[in-house]
């Protein structure tokens, strides 16, 4: 295969070599258990606490112990949803999540819905955002927790978290945000946003898979999710992944250091991608095109008359890695719950394309995708028995 272009940074990122470098000594030499009292353990504890402080500094946490190291975005989300809802032994109440959350938030919310809690799913607007007014209307006296993601992983729209958190607090509930896609990509400041809890994932920021962080504002009660030896100030048990957590902190610092140059670079690449793709592919549309704010690195398209997986596999054969916006990139027929939630028709949701850019994306990658996509779409449309009908309908709706 000639050129390969990785354009799925929202799915995962390579670990930056500088991050690997920072982790390496903690595998073999500085391998102590951070809970052990002797020198090797103290060295590990110091490195762990240093990593915690670096993460706290990056997100402007008030205190290092507001940073809880976890095994990833999923564990952070599960812990936040279930741990906050059931804190202090609470076994009922109302929680609100947006309908286009990641399943790592939706599933625990649904679990709570089956175990004594009531769950409201807030529908985002077609511009891909959750409106504070809608949240205000959904809040109830017994609402205990609201969770709305910061940047959506499929369509890249950014939610007005500060307003949503303020509305939530006015209603007397706690506010959690899943910021797995935003950390490092745009400014993330817990103090400015006013959130009580936030979830992050290492492998989205050029850190290792299997690492994550839950930010939990000091004084917020949480029922522990992983129970045992009482590590992480009794908030998350399990021998700490010292190397991984150092990797997380290092990766985050690199994101912060490079963001001033990287965010505009990615934004420009993305904007060129959007305009060229829409120009090149007949009937293609940008999803949530009216979004007031979007992440620099994600663009999601509907390509009518084409099925997502087939498109993805042909692009793969051309050396291009992208994802279809479908909720289940690998297996399910179900169209993306995110696209459906913003009003995308089901038959179009099956033909979505998510392109996500990152540290190693160049203009050539964009050219590669644009150049390869047109013939793939052409070919798949020519094999689509309904394509003429689809075009007729599109022509109808477009006039």
């Amino acid at each position: 295969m000639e050129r390969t272009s990785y354009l799925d940074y929202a799915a995962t990122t390579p670990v930056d070599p500088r991050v690997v470098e920072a982790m390496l000594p903690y595998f073999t030499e500085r391998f102590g258990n951070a809970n052990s009292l002797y020198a090797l353990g103290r060295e590990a504890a110091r490195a762990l606490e240093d990593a915690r402080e670096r993460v706290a500094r990056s997100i402007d946490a008030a205190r290092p112990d507001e940073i809880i190291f976890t095994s990833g975005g999923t564990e952070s989300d599960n812990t936040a949803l279930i741990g906050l809802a059931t804190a202090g032994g609470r076994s009922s109440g109302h929680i609100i999540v947006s309908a286009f959350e990641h399943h790592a938030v939706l599933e625990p919310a649904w679990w709570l819905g089956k175990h004594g809690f009531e769950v409201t799913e807030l529908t985002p607007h077609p511009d891909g955002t959750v409106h504070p007014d809608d949240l205000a209307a959904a809040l109830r006296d017994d609402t205990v927790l609201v969770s709305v993601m910061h940047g959506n992983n499929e369509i890249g729209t950014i939610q007005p978290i500060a307003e949503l958190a303020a509305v939530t607090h006015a209603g007397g509930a706690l506010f959690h945000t899943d910021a797995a896609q935003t950390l490092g990509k745009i400014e993330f400041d817990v103090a400015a946003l006013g959130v009580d809890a936030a979830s992050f994932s290492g492998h989205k920021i050029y850190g290792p898979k299997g690492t994550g962080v839950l930010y939990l504002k000091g004084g917020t009660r949480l029922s522990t999710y992983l129970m045992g030896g009482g590590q992480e100030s009794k908030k998350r048990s399990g021998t700490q992944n010292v190397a991984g957590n150092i990797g997380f902190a290092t990766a985050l610092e690199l994101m912060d250091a490079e963001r001033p140059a990287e965010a505009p670079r990615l934004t420009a690449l993305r904007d060129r991608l959007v305009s060229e793709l829409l120009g090149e592919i007949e009937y293609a549309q940008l999803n949530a095109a009216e979004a007031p704010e979007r992440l620099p690195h994600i663009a999601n398209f509907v390509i009518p008359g084409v099925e997502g997986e087939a498109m993805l596999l042909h692009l793969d054969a051309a050396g291009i890695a992208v994802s279809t916006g479908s909720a289940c990139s690998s297996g399910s027929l179900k169209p993306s719950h995110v696209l459906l939630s913003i009003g995308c028709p089901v038959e179009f949701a099956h033909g979505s394309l998510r392109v996500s850019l990152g540290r190693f994306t160049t203009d050539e990658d964009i050219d590669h995708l644009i150049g390869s996509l047109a013939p793939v779409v052409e070919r798949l449309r020519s094999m689509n028995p309904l394509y003429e009908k689809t075009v007729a309908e599109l022509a109808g709706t477009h006039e």
Partner: protein
Amino acid sequence: MIYSDKVMDHFGNPRNVGVLEDADGTGEVGNPVCGDVMKITIKVDDDRIGDIRFQTLGCGAAIATSSIVTEMAKGMTLAEAVAITKSQVAEELGGLPPAKMHCSVLATDGLKKAVDDYLVSQGREPIAVGTIAHDDPDFDPHAEEHDEACEV
């Protein structure tokens, strides 16, 4: 979820793509809301499948199963063609991921419909009616699919 080499071959180089202009029978199954639609056209020669073409909107497995079923059917008697099972299709492709097994029904159903369409056009009794999953109001092509990891 990983496709076999044979699936990838039939997906990347599908055989018998298109529409027969002077088809003797046509079968169309599926639904864009479900994400896959297949249309099959056949020429019948002496109660055998003389020529066959397909068009499919769908995932890799939908296209590959469509392609292989046209290869399997070509030259078969009509009775043999409608007897092709979804497991035979999957087997012929070196297996399908569990989440994709429903795709082989799409292909066999399309073929069955085309055969019956031909028979009915000849004033003969349809032979596949009753065995076409897509005609069953309780049929849910998604039923088998929920065993794969999702969001990335």
